[in-house]
């Protein structure tokens, strides 16, 4: 097992190289005036040329990319064009915010969708099943900026229970997490439902009942553990989605997350920040996927066997 984890970590290096190449090339392709973003409107052409020279933007793509990679290898991701702050530090400052938001949102999603998924699976094709589905779909078919605004208007403005935006303490987390969480709930509910439907008809469930296990235990202990594999896949996928996907929710609630950081830096062509943060996102994503795969093994011994002998 350890060998497998090491192999995956080693594999991350070519991934990062490839990612940086793709993004650097993409930002190059995306064009846009980098220097224009940095200088005030009435800066003279000489000042523009001086800055372009200073940043080495006139050099051919290969030279710029090599220089960037040289920096990357030594852990220096360069400085943001827009704010002048170190890219790595800014990313790390915002990472806990996104993890907090993403994590809580996922918990919210799981609390809502796993029981709902099981409930709809148990009452398949009854009205309970359809209403459960409609509720689960409510989150994904409603754009999260709209959902966010509605929640904000109700809880912050009308009822004044919760702060409308900002990020100074746990109670600031409630509304954004709910907004993002509802968006995630749909896929997790659907996956739970179809997984449970498959599991309910299995013979070992009858064996469990024949042992005298209560209905609840059969469903939650025997059934859920088997159903967890596709559910964990869905959650793993959602978590990586939340990293950069909840940019709009972060904008609505002024939550300083990574989604918003990437969103703004692409808009202002802040190349070091975009490249740096997406590389770090990619590293994070690989780690998350690795964790999801390990959870697979923990959940499904057949796959663990596959990993250990595969090395």
């Amino acid at each position, binding site marked *: 097992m350890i060998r497998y984890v090491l192999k995956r970590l080693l594999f991350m290096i070519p991934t990062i190289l*490839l*990612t940086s190449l793709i993004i650097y090339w993409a930002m190059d392709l995306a064009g846009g005036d980098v220097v224009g973003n940095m200088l005030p409107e009435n800066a003279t052409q000489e000042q523009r040329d001086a800055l372009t020279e200073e940043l080495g933007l006139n050099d051919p793509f290969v030279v710029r990319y090599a220089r960037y990679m040289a920096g990357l290898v030594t852990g220096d991701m360069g400085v943001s064009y827009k704010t002048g702050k170190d890219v790595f530090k800014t990313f790390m400052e915002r990472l806990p915010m996104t993890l907090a938001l993403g994590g809580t949102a996922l918990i919210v999603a799981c609390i809502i969708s796993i029981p709902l998924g099981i409930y709809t699976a148990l009452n398949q094709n009854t009205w309970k099943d359809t209403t459960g*589905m409609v509720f689960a779909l409510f989150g994904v078919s409603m754009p999260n900026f*709209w959902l966010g605004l509605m929640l904000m208007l109700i809880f912050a403005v009308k009822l004044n229970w919760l702060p409308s935006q900002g990020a100074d303490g746990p109670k600031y987390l409630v509304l954004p997490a709910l907004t993002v969480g509802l968006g995630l709930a749909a896929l997790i509910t659907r996956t739970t439902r179809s997984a449970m439907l498959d599991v309910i008809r299995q013979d070992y469930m009858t064996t469990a009942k024949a042992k005298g296990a209560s209905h609840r235990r059969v469903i939650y202990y025997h059934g859920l553990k088997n159903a967890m594999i596709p559910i964990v896949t869905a959650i793993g996928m959602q978590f990586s*989605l939340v*990293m950069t996907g909840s940019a709009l929710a972060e904008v609505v609630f002024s939550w300083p997350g990574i989604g918003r950081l990437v969103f703004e830096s692409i808009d202002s062509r802040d190349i070091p920040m975009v490249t740096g943060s997406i590389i770090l996102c*990619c590293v994070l*994503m690989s780690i998350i996927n690795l964790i999801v795969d390990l959870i697979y093994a923990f959940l499904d011994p057949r796959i663990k066997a596959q990993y250990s002998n595969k090395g």
Partner: protein
Amino acid sequence: MSEMSKAVSTENLNEYKGRSLAQETWRRLLKNKGAVVGMIFMVLLLILALSGDFLYDYDTEIIGMNMSEARLAPSAEHFFGTDQLGRDVFSRIVYGTRYSLIIGVGSVAVGLIVGLITGSLAGFYGGMWDQLVMRANDILYSIPNIMLAVVIVQVLGTSVLSLVIALSISSATSFAKITRAAVMTIRGQEYVESAYAMGLPTWKIILRHIIPNCLSPIIVQVTLAIGSNIIAASSLSFLGVGVPIPTPEWGTMLSDGRQFIRSEPWMCVFPGIAIMLTVLALNLMGDGLRDALDPKLKR
């Protein structure tokens, strides 16, 4: 054994013989009320998408502006009210059906094909191929579709096509991931080994045995992805990399109507509801299809 079959009453024999898989699935699909409602809605959408030009004249009624009627509340004359340029929201939604369907369905279709192939190969072969595909997935997954859209728009210019390509890339990654997970668990089953034993070539095994069996998680993802891609189009158009102005695409109408969310909510509410109903219809149909196709669910 031959004389035995003769003796069996012919009546119940041909009853079974007649029903191929497709007819069987269709018959069972019709039993599921939700799926039927979903199908009817989708057929209606398809008709609207095709008949847009007959119902409305594009220049005058869809993008034509008359400020005197700007921002009217929903009324008999304008079912869904008018937007800030006085254009009738209802006709724009009806006409816009085609763009949203093209974006939603198109991007998911492309993504599905790419995802299925890479996912099943990764799941089936494992080893190097699996790592390659999965790591490529990690990369594509971490690149937000906002960035993909910006780059593609820069290369191809703002058009529905570039939007479809950008969204299909991000959908492909999720399909590949699901297919891989499904294929990995199914690959161990005996019927796959027996297919091997019969000497079938690998790609045939994948096509005939493995993919049909990992249909249910895929159908779930297809129906969801179409909805979320239509919504993603709205955030992209907010960034200016969506469909060109004045195309009446639902996602764009949603993000344009954003500023008026509290004062004139109908500009935002109705496109939102249109998307929501489409996603709901797709999912009910998808669910019905999933249950109908799943032989184990025969009762």
